[in-house]
C-alpha cells in the first residue's frame, strides 16, 4: 500500500507543480539579485539574503527561509488535506477499503507519502537553490583568494564546505519534520471531511492562528507549543558552535504534533462510516 501511495503521488501533476513553484520562487529572487546586485540590508527581508550576494553557497539557506513562512505550508496543506478527503470525494476510498486495505494501513501509507512529499520538497528547494546560487553568485571571494570556498557562519567563524553541507542536511531534516507535523494535522483534518479544500484551508487557518499568537505577550504560556514557534530554530544550525537548545525543543514539539495528530486521525478514521 505504501508503494501504491508513493506511485500515486509522483503521478499527480499537482504535486509536481507544487515542487516546481517552490523551486521557482528562490530562483526568481536569485535572478533579480544577480542582475541588480541590490542586496537587502542585513536585518531586513529574509535571513541570509544579505549575505548571499557575496557567497552563493548560502543561497539554499536563504531560499528555505523564503519559502518557509507561506509557500511551503500552503503546498503541504494542499497535499495533506487531499490525502483522505480527495479519495473520499472521488469515491476511490471505499474501493480501497473493500479491496480490503486495513484502515490503519491506509492511514500510515498516507502519512508516509506526505512525509516523502515534504522531504522531497525541502530537498528540491535546497538542491536547486544551491545550483542557482552558485551559478549566480559564485563561491564567494574566499574561493578566489584560495580560501577553499569557506562560508562565514552567523557567529562570524568560517565554515568549511563540508561542514556547511552537514548543516544544510540537518536543516533539510529539521524543516521536513516541521512540515510533516503540519502534514499530520492536515491528514487528521482530511479524515474529518469529504472536502479536500476544507481540510487544506483548516491547515492554513492553523498556521495563521499560530503566527498571529506567536508575538503576543498574552500568549506566552502557550507560545512554546505553537506549531510555527520553532520553524526558525534551524537558523541556529548556522551558528558556530551550534546552539542546540531551541532545535532540540523544536524537534520535541514537532514530533508531538505528528504523534497527536496521527493518533487523532486514526481515532476518527478507525470507526468512521464511509458514506461518500
Amino acid at each position, binding site marked *: 500500500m505504501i508503494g501504491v501511495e508513493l506511485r500515486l503521488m509522483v503521478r499527480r501533476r499537482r504535486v509536481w507543480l507544487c515542487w516546481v513553484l517552490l523551486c521557482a520562487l528562490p530562483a526568481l529572487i536569485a535572478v533579480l539579485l544577480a542582475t541588480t546586485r541590490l542586496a537587502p540590508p542585513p536585518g531586513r527581508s529574509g535571513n541570509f539574503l544579505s549575505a548571499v550576494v557575496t557567497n552563493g553557497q548560502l543561497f539554499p539557506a536563504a531560499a528555505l527561509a523564503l519559502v518557509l513562512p507561506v509557500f511551503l505550508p500552503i503546498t503541504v496543506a494542499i497535499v495533506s488535506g487531499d490525502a483522505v478527503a480527495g479519495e473520499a470525494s*472521488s469515491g476511490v476510498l471505499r474501493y*480501497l477499503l473493500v479491496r480490503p486495505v486495513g484502515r490503519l494501513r491506509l492511514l500510515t501509507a498516507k502519512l508516509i507519502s506526505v512525509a516523502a512529499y515534504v522531504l522531497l520538497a525541502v530537498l528540491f528547494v535546497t538542491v536547486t537553490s544551491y545550483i542557482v546560487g552558485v551559478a549566480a553568485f559564485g563561491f564567494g571571494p574566499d574561493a578566489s583568494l584560495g580560501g577553499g570556498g569557506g562560508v562565514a557562519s552567523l557567529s562570524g567563524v568560517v565554515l568549511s564546505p563540508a561542514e556547511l553541507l552537514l548543516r544544510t542536511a540537518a536543516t533539510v531534516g529539521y524543516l521536513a519534520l516541521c512540515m510533516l507535523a503540519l502534514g499530520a494535522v492536515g491528514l487528521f483534518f482530511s479524515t474529518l471531511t469529504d472536502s479536500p479544500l476544507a481540510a487544506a484551508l483548516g491547515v492554513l487557518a492553523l498556521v495563521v492562528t499560530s503566527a498571529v499568537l506567536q508575538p503576543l505577550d498574552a500568549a506566552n504560556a502557550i507560545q512554546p507549543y505553537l506549531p510555527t514557534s520553532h520553524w526558525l530554530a534551524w537558523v541556529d544550525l548556522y551558528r558556530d558552535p551550534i546552539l542546540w537548545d531551541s532545535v532540540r525543543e523544536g524537534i520535541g514539539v514537532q514530533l508531538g504534533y505528528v504523534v497527536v495528530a496521527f493518533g487523532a486521525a486514526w481515532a476518527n478514521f478507525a470507526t468512521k462510516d*464511509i*458514506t461518500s
Partner: protein
Amino acid sequence: MTAVITTSGLTKRFGRVTAVDGVDLQVTEGARFGLLGPNGSGKTTLIRMLLGLVHPTAGSMQLLGHAMPRGAAEALPQVGALVENPAAWGHLSGRANLRLLDAAGRGGRVRDRKARVDDALDRVGLGGVDRRPVRAYSLGMRQRLGIAAALLRSPRLLLLDEPSNGLDPRGINEMRELFTELNAAGTTVVLSSHLLAEVEALCTRVGLMDAGRLVLDADLDALRAPTGFVLLRTPDSARAVALLDGRLDGAPVAGSGGDPELRVRHADPGALNAELVAAGVRVTALSAQRRSLEQVVFELTGAGSDRVERARTDAEPVGAPPR
C-alpha cells in the same frame, strides 16, 4: 446450501433517520439475488454495512462465514463489489487504475498481475482500452471499469449496487450474460437495482426493501405465480363473450395489437383454448396471466424518499436519503 450472507436484526441509524431497520437476510451460495426497493429504502446502506464501510447501530452479520466488520480481512478478499458508482483515479488510465488497486491489497502473485488485469478488462469488453485517463471515459466505460475492478480477484461473491447504471441496452444485456456465466461457474451474485426488468431477467430470488425494512424475501418464481386468469385475444370477441359469460373479468379491452383482449377466470389455458376452438372462436393469443414483479413491488412499497410531499400536520420526518 451454505449461506454467503446472513444478517440478523441489522439496524443503522444516521442521527434521527433509520436507514436500515432490523433486517434479517440470508443469501445462499450460488444464488442470483436481487435487492429491490425505492430510492432511499436502505439498499445501499445495507450493502455498505455488509462491506464494512458503515458500522451497524445494532444487529450482526456474517459475510462468507466471517463476522463483519471484524472479519473484513478474511471475508473481503473473496468479495467483488460495486458500491453506488464506480470510482477511479481520474488522472490514470483504466489499466493503471486496476494495477494499483490490485497492488493495494494483499494476496495474488505480483507476476500474475498483468494477466489478472487484462483478463478482467477483457471480460467487461474494455480489453482494447488505450492510455487515455479515466477522466476522459464515458459513463458506460466507467461502469465497465468498475465491474472489472470487482472481478479482479475472481471473487466468490459479487455485490453489485446498480450495475447497469450508464450502460446502453446492449451493454446491460452483455453484463447480464457475464453475470449469468459467472454464476454458472459458482459465483454468488447479489445486485441491487430499481430496474425491475433487469432483476426479473437475471435473478432467481428477490429481496424487497421499503423504508429500511426487508418486506419481502422470496423466490422470483413464487412471486410470479399464475393469478388464475387467462388473457385471451380474439377477433370474434362478441362470440367469445357469449360463450364465456360469467367467467369473464371485465369487458373486452381494445388491445394495441388490433384484436380486443379478454380476461377470463380459468386455471388451464390449454382447456380454455380447446373449448374456444371447438365453438369456432378464432384465438390469436392466449396466455396464463402472471403477476408482474412491478405489481408485487408497488403493492408492498411506498413512494421513494426522493419524493417529498408538502408536509402535513402529522407528517413523519422526511430524512435525507441515506446514501
